[in-house]
Every structure is written in structure tokens, then in C-alpha cells.
């Protein structure tokens, strides 16, 4: 027993492992957060930042590893235990109840606000905190959240997390808190974070704006592929060394890339620069174009705009100009009650029909042809689609798009949760189809896939900030463009 008040970690996660199916989201992460420090957490898509945040706030329990609060190991750690230990979290996506007022949302977050006069107390708590963090905010605590702007909602959420009702606030996790705040509000927040930390609180700060991370954090933890790959005091990093730490060791594998001479050709698909900023989008026949950058920075919107601009007409022609491969299979990919064959042929029923009736032999032939070509592992195409593994379902979705005569295929991160073997097969099919003249526009959150593309557009905050061609499509360049571009 030590009588000396050692500075115990506010929270200590040791060797946490979590896997979702075959994907290792966390692969033995150890993280100690001491009182009075701001820890910056950076990493690219899927590095495991959100997963470790969910472990710390109690939303996920690690399959392996231990969690200790203030030096005491916790046996059963959940949301309630996390909150009891003073852990608060501001999530990346806004998570207030839009139908309630600001005061009522404060009540939802703080259990102990109850009994007579809770409204008055809540109004005082949230009002004072808002004044403290964002002086001159102009938010009315009795107003309904759905009437507030996105930035105001974010401010309310941040203030709610920092406000103290019963248990002291020891650790606040800020997951991309500045993404919807303008520069002056972001500065107010970062100043407050420093004051909070100097008063003995702790903050985990996640941001893709490296300048903020470097100026606000005491210590920076870099994650990649579910592991902590670097951990140093903030002063030992600069933007370039951070980007370098996020990337992997350069792989020996090198692939032949074509640089098509596109000068003078008419693009197959094109779109002017989004919101009048950044670069314009163009795609030529036979290209594989990657859309890179951090998740949710406008890639999916671009794909949907491209698709709707060419199919959104009621009087659409018989031959589709573009086909779409959805990323979220369950949500907008498969028809779960239909057979494999019906799922495969749905996109090209017009081509299989004679006088308004689908020709069954033609449908069966098409199915057989694609079954052999992409090796769908099933005895009978009449089996329900859900009898296939996830990877094989995804192959069917690819076949659905490729079976159409559409010259361009849009893909919205279609390889999520697909095993590596299937991926290799699909990559080969894509390359073969591209050689025949088809165009692919491919949004992917995986760096390996982006590096397969002929040309890559890097997105940041909804606009295209960089275009990389041929051999310059490397992990280092993509990371540099998606992180450093944000500061510009």
C-alpha cells in the first residue's frame, strides 16, 4: 500500500482487443490518461480511434484486456460505470434529442437533475457553462434543439459534456468537436480545453486538423490498424512527422499503373467543383478513379450526385449510363427475400425483357455466365441471397452492376467486411473490365484499394483538395492531402 498520493491514471486501458468478425478493430491497445493532460488521438479511417473511444465510454466491452479507473481495476465496466467515474463524451455525429429543449437535453445527460425546480437548476448549469466556454454564444436554453444551427447544437453538446452536476467531470472525450464550428468558436473551445486541463481535468482530443492537435495536446497517440504505432509528447511531432507516423512502412509490392493521356478527350462523367471550391471531377473511359480522404467528407455525396444526375429523370432511356454498387449491403444492396439470380439480374431487366415480359431462359443464361465468371460459391442460383457469405453477396452486387451495359460503375466503399481472397478476385475483375473500356469511380476507406486506382481525388470537408495520378498515388501522398489539406 502506498500512502503517497501517486498520480493514478484517470483511466487505463491495457491490451484491449476487439474484433468484428474477421476485422480486428483493436489489436492490443494500451492507453493511460493521467489527470491534467490533453491527449491527442490521430489516425486514418479504420485505425480504431472510434473503437477505443467506445471502450473508454463504456459502450463496448473489449474481448480481452483490462480497464482501470483511478488505479482500481474495473470488473464490470459499462456506460453507467464510465459516467460514475466522470468520463464524458462528445460524439462525432450530433447526438442531442432534436425534439427537446436545451434544458431538457441537459436533463437527459445528467441523471441527478430531478425533483422540484430541476428546470431552473438545469438552465443555470447549462447557461453558465455555455457562457464560460463560448462567451457571447446567444443560445436560448429554453429553445428547442431542432431550431438551432448545427454549430449551436455542437456547442450545446460540448457544454453539456463539460458541465458538472453530481459526479466531478474527470475526462472528456472530444471526437472531432471542431468539424462543425467556425474558426473563432474552435479557438474558444481549444482555449477552454487548455483551461480545463490546467485545472486538473483530462481530455482525449480527436481531430483531423493536425494544427489543432499539435497546439492543444500535451501528448499525441497515433493509431493505425487497431494498434498504437507512436506515442510522444506533442512537442516532438510536427505535421509531417505525424503524417509519416500514420502511414505504414512502404511496401515492396509495386503495381504497373497506366497514365492515360486524357488531353483532348471528352470525359465520360464530369462534375464541376463542389460548392464552388476545390477541383472539378472528371472521369474518362477505361479509368479506375479512387475517391479518397477521411470518411464522410463528401465522397458518398459526390457518387450520389453523379448517379442522380444521370438517372434521376422519369423519362430515362432504356440503357442506363451508370450503375451503382452500394456499400451498405443490408441497407441498400441486397433484396433479402429474393434468390441470388433475381438479385443479380434486377439491374438489367430491361435488357432481358421482350415486350414487357422477362425472358426466363435469358435470365438464367446471364446468371450462369456470371456465376462462372466471378465464382459465386453456391450450388444453385435459385437459393436465397442470404444463404451466401457476405463476400459472395458482395460479388453478386458487383455482377449486378457489371451485367448492365452501363459504361460507368460507381462504387460506394463496397469492400467493407469482405475477406481478402474475395477482394483479390474482385480487383482482378475490375482491372479486366477497365481494360475493356469501362470506367470505375471507387470510394474506398482502405488505403490498399485507393493505391490500386489509376487516378485519385482526395476529399476534404466536402470538396476535392487534390488529384493524384499514376505513380504519385501512394499512401504518403493521400494521407498528406487528406490531413494537411484541411488546414489550408
Amino acid at each position: 500500500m502506498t500512502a503517497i498520493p501517486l498520480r493514478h491514471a484517470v483511466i487505463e486501458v491495457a491490451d484491449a482487443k476487439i474484433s468484428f468478425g474477421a476485422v480486428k478493430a483493436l489489436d492490443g491497445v494500451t492507453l493511460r490518461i493521467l489527470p491534467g493532460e490533453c491527449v491527442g488521438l490521430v489516425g486514418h479511417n479504420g485505425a480504431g480511434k472510434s473503437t477505443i473511444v467506445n471502450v473508454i465510454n463504456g459502450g463496448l466491452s473489449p474481448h480481452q484486456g483490462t480497464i482501470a479507473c483511478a488505479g482500481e481495476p474495473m470488473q464490470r465496466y459499462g456506460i453507467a460505470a464510465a459516467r460514475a467515474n466522470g468520463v464524458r463524451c462528445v460524439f462525432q455525429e450530433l447526438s442531442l434529442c432534436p425534439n427537446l429543449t436545451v434544458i431538457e437535453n441537459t436533463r437527459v445527460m445528467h441523471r441527478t437533475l430531478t425533483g422540484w425546480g430541476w428546470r431552473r437548476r438545469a438552465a443555470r448549469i447549462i447557461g453558465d457553462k455555455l457562457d464560460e466556454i463560448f462567451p457571447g454564444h446567444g443560445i436560448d436554453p429554453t429553445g428547442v434543439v431542432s431550431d438551432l444551427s448545427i454549430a449551436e447544437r455542437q456547442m450545446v453538446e460540448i457544454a453539456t459534456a463539460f458541465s458538472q452536476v453530481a459526479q466531478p467531470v474527470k475526462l472528456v472525450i472530444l471526437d472531432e468537436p471542431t468539424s462543425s464550428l467556425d474558426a473563432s468558436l474552435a479557438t474558444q473551445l481549444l482555449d477552454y480545453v487548455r483551461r480545463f486541463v490546467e485545472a486538473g481535468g483530462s481530455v482525449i482530443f480527436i481531430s483531423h486538423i493536425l494544427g489543432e492537435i499539435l497546439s492543444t495536446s500535451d501528448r499525441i497517440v497515433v493509431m493505425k490498424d487497431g494498434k498504437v504505432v507512436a506515442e510522444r509528447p506533442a512537442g516532438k511531432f510536427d505535421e509531417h512527422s505525424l503524417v509519416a507516423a500514420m502511414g505504414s512502412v512502404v511496401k515492396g509490392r509495386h503495381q504497373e499503373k497506366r497514365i492515360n493521356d486524357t488531353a483532348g478527350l471528352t470525359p465520360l462523367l464530369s462534375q464541376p467543383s463542389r460548392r464552388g471550391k476545390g477541383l472539378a471531377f472528371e472521369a474518362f473511359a477505361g479509368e479506375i478513379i479512387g475517391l479518397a480522404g477521411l470518411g464522410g467528407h463528401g465522397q458518398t455525396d459526390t457518387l450520389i450526385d453523379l448517379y442522380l444526375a444521370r438517372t434521376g429523370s422519369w423519362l430515362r432511356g432504356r440503357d442506363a449510363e451508370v450503375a451503382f454498387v452500394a456499400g451498405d449491403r443490408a441497407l441498400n444492396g441486397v433484396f433479402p427475400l429474393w434468390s441470388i439470380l433475381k438479385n443479380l439480374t434486377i439491374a438489367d431487366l430491361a435488357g432481358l425483357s421482350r415486350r414487357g415480359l422477362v425472358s426466363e431462359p435469358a435470365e438464367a443464361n446471364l446468371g450462369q455466365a456470371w456465376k462462372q465468371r466471378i465464382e459465386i460459391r453456391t450450388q444453385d442460383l435459385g437459393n436465397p441471397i442470404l444463404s451466401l457469405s457476405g463476400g459472395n453477396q458482395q460479388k453478386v452486387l458487383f455482377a449486378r452492376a457489371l451485367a448492365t451495359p452501363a459504361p460507368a460503375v460507381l462504387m460506394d466503399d463496397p469492400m467493407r467486411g469482405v475477406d481478402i481472397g474475395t477482394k483479390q478476385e474482385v480487383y482482378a475483375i475490375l482491372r479486366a473490365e477497365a481494360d475493356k473500356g469501362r470506367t470505375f469511380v471507387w470510394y474506398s476507406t482502405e488505403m490498399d484499394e485507393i493505391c490500386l486506382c489509376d487516378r485519385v481525388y482526395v476529399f476534404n470537408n466536402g470538396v476535392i483538395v487534390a488529384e493524384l495520378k499514376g505513380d504519385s498515388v501512394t499512401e504518403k501522398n493521400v494521407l498528406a492531402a487528406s490531413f494537411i489539406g484541411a488546414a489550408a
Partner: protein
Amino acid sequence: MKKVLSSDTIRLLIPALSLTILLISVFYLQPRAMSYVGLNLLFNLAVPIALATIAQMLIMTVNDLDLSMGTFVSFVACVAATFLQATPVIGVLILAAAIATYAALGVLIHMRNLPSIVVTLGMSFIWGGLAVLILPAPGGEAPAWVRAVMISRPPFMPMAIIACIIIAVVSHFIIMRSSFGVILRGVGGNARSVERAGWSILGVRAATYALAAFFAILAGISLVGLTTSADANIALRYTLLSIAGVILGGGEFTGGRVSPIGAVIGALTLTLAGSFLSFLRISPDWQIGAQGAILIVVLGLRLLLNRLENRGKRS
């Protein structure tokens, strides 16, 4: 910039206006209705409908829908006219078991992630069957105390109006003002964030369903107090009436946006619409259709107002 009217006030404006217009038309057609007895007769049947509407509104607050409301109220009416009158202890036990069943339904719907419409539709046959078992033929007798409350004549204001005001105030306090009501509406608005704040959604759902059953039981008992006897099919119309009442009163099917005062006003409007059509001497064959037309007009007005409000927000 300060807004003149909050969005909640605007939400209440349409139901209040439509009730006023209907009331004025009724008084114009039949001036004798403008009396103590007249008002009591006009709004008598609104009391059970208002209670059932509040019950339905509670279920809708957590983004569910109860299609068994009508049969459940009928079942309660049958219990009230038989067991509650003859052997009060057994009657109370049966009603307590009914509340527990509702709470269990809430748990089941949440745990198995079932659509509430399917579960309650199934339950409606069970409640209906139980009601027929208790009272195979119309009959029974209302407990004396219920009857006494329902026909009492307080000074100045008829019982029906007082009861509706009490229902509105009590449910407004529970749902809109109390700290429990905040969590309840929070579940409708964004269940994920309520869960992340450390609340048990399961518990909230169960409590909501139990509370809804409590209001529905009050509806059944008050209905028996008015009709003096019961019948297994006495309140079948309540399922749709209660849903229409909530929507008419400014509530929405999803998103936890509800208004208890609006719901009571909605129930009053629906009751009054029936009387209004009788005063117009519209044949009963056309009344249902005409009632539907009134509903469409009021809801159309609300859509218009919503659109105006959204346009104001965007500019």
C-alpha cells in the same frame, strides 16, 4: 432576434382554432347547446376518448403505435361492469395484471425489436376475446362510485369540461414538465443518445407502456360510468379515434413530438365533429365520410403551416 411564437405554440394553434370554429358553428346551429346541460351533453363522451388519446399518445411518444387501444378499452369496460362492480378486489387485480401485460409488451417489443403495430394488432384479438368471455352479451352494471362521479353536477362548469381540463393538466405535467417525461420524449427523439447517457431504454419503454395502460383503463372505467353497462364491442372505434386525436392535436408519428393539451383538444374536436354533423342533419350514412373530410381539412391546414414554418426557418 426573439421569435414571436415558439414552434410548440404554433403546434397548438391549429387544434385550438379548429375546436373554436366547430364550437361556434354548433352554437350557431343550435343556440340551446350554449348551456350547462348542453355543454355536458356535447362533451360527455369526450372524456373516455380524451383518456384513450392520451394513452395512445404515450405509445406514440416512443415511436410505437397501439392498434389494440379500442379492444383494450372495451375489455376494461367489461371488467369494470362486472368484476369491479361485484368483487372490487378481483377487479383491481385483473386491471393490475393488464398493466403488467402492457409493460411486458413494451419489454417484448424492445427486446425482440418487433414492430409494435404487429404485436398490438395480435393483442387486439386477445383483448377482444377476453372481453367476449367476460361479457358474452351486452350487460353488466357500472360501479356506483364511477356512475356518481360521471353524472355529478359541479357548480359553474359541467363535469365533462372539468374532467377534460384535469386530464390535460395532469398529462401535460407528466409528459412535458416532469423529469421522467423528458426521458420519455428523449427516447422518441434520439434513443441512441439517451442510451449513451446511461439510461435503460428497456425500462423507459416498459414504464411508458404501463402508463399508457393506466390511462386506457381510466378511459374504460369512465366509459362504463357514462353508459352504465358494457359490451365487448363498446369501444372498437377508439383505436382510430385515439390516433386521429393525437395527430389532430399536433402530435407526430415519430420523433417524440407530442402535445398532451393538443391531444385532449383533438379528442374534443373529434367528438364535437360528430355532434356538428348531426345538427347539420347529415344522414348517419354520410357522417363517417363527413368526419373524415373534417379531419382532412384540419390536417391539410397543419401541413400548410408546417411548410410555412420551415420556409421561415430556411430563409
